[in-house]
């Protein structure tokens, strides 16, 4: 028979050992994980601008292709510009901006900042806008690359933490993402966003087809989450775009 004291001692020693092992593993592995996450983020940004990167050359390609990082505030003024490795004004790098925190500030009605990345495709200036939203099981995120009219989509990427495999998780496939190419965010200068339409865009009126893509069967909640994420993130840029046109 084991005494209560033994049981308490056993449990305490066990949890201390486990905690020590796990926290030292986490501390030791953290730099690797953070690097992986940064590379993953860069890869997504590059992929939306139609640049295929492998894990090895991502950092190099990012520095070469994304030549300007701009931070904008919620009323459309530029907060900081980071160009070719130096700050031209301000001191926030758009790449390091935590979109989750900024969107939280937005939901609380506070002032917030948003990132805007500038790159070039075939000699033309393009903008890349990072996205973030809430899926069915966890966060979803992505990047959308648009022409310099801020409306025509060049490419998108989506990622997710834990959407249902085979259903909602299909948002990170090429098949789903390729539907966005050529769609328009604005309709005659009015913000429209792009919707993921259940049942398919065949059911939409003709003039709305350019603002919609087909949803994933079985992944309705994730599909709606993508629609919401696009609207919630893209609308923040409207003040900036109106000021600059």
């Amino acid at each position, binding site marked *: 028979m*084991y005494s209560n004291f*033994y*049981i308490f001692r*056993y*449990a305490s020693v*066990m*949890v201390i050992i*486990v905690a020590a*092992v*796990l926290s030292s*593993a*986490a501390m030791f*592995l953290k730099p*690797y*994980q953070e690097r*992986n996450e940064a*590379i*993953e983020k860069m890869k997504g940004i590059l992929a939306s601008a139609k640049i295929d990167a492998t*894990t090895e050359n991502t950092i190099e390609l990012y520095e070469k292709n994304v030549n300007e990082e701009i931070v904008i505030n919620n009323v459309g003024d530029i907060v900081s510009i980071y160009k070719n490795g130096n700050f031209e004004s301000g001191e926030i790098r758009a790449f390091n901006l935590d979109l989750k925190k900024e969107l939280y500030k937005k939901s609380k009605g506070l002032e917030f900042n948003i990132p805007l990345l500038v790159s070039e495709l075939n000699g033309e200036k393009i903008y890349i806008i990072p996205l973030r939203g809430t899926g069915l*099981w966890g966060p979803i995120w992505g990047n959308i690359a648009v022409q310099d009219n801020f409306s025509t989509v060049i490419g998108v990427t989506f*990622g*997710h*933490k*834990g*959407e249902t*495999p*085979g*259903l909602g*998780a299909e948002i990170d496939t090429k098949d789903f993402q390729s539907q966005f190419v050529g769609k328009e965010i604005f309709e005659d200068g009015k913000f429209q966003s792009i919707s993921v339409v259940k049942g398919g865009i065949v059911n939409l009126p003709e003039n709305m087809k350019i603002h919609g893509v087909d949803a994933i*069967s*079985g992944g309705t909640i994730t599909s709606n989450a993508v629609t919401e994420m696009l609207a919630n993130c893209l609308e923040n840029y409207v003040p900036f775009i109106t000021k600059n046109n």
Partner: protein
Amino acid sequence: MNVEKKEKEALFSIKNRKLLINPLHKDNPITIQVLGVCSALAVTAKMKPAFVMTLSVMAVVAVANVLISIMRNGIPPRIRIIVQLVVIAALVILVDQVLKAFVFDISKQLSVFVGLIITNCILMGRLEAFAMANKPWPAFLDGLGNGFGYGWILIVVSFFRELLGSGTVWDYPIMENLGVYNFGYKNNGLMILPPMALILIGIIIWVQKSKDKSLIEEK
């Protein structure tokens, strides 16, 4: 030490080999013991995650079995389930962290599945039923055997679900290359949904039991 030596038997004695082989068929965790069905439904829509899930479960159940077997004489019976759970959870988190640091791409594909290993009933079942009463080496074999007994069902189920549901095998578009779409063939979306995994497992059990009548329980 001396006592250990007297009892020492060959590493792969018949008894030990049985530990490894029985879970594949006669004592299969999914089809006979009907454990771990929940995750078998969730991760079998595609072959790749099913395969990595198999490897992860094998690793975790084998190591957890060994650890619990080493600790078995000191574990107070009243908190043994908690101890087992802590061991499993710690191992799973470790596996998850290592995957995230060194094979990020695979870890991304697996997403929540790795965490789901904690809730896999097979692990608790093996720790409670086997590791608590056996030496580390047999426990290790038992863990590997059960991990693979679980895994081969996953791989078979995911093969059919991916082939019929997505028209691919290991992400290779086999149906497209065979050109069957030209004859009006369509992927069966139902295969992607969890109920079909259950039906496939049912079919496997049916085939297994009709081949080996000794597995049929008497009423």
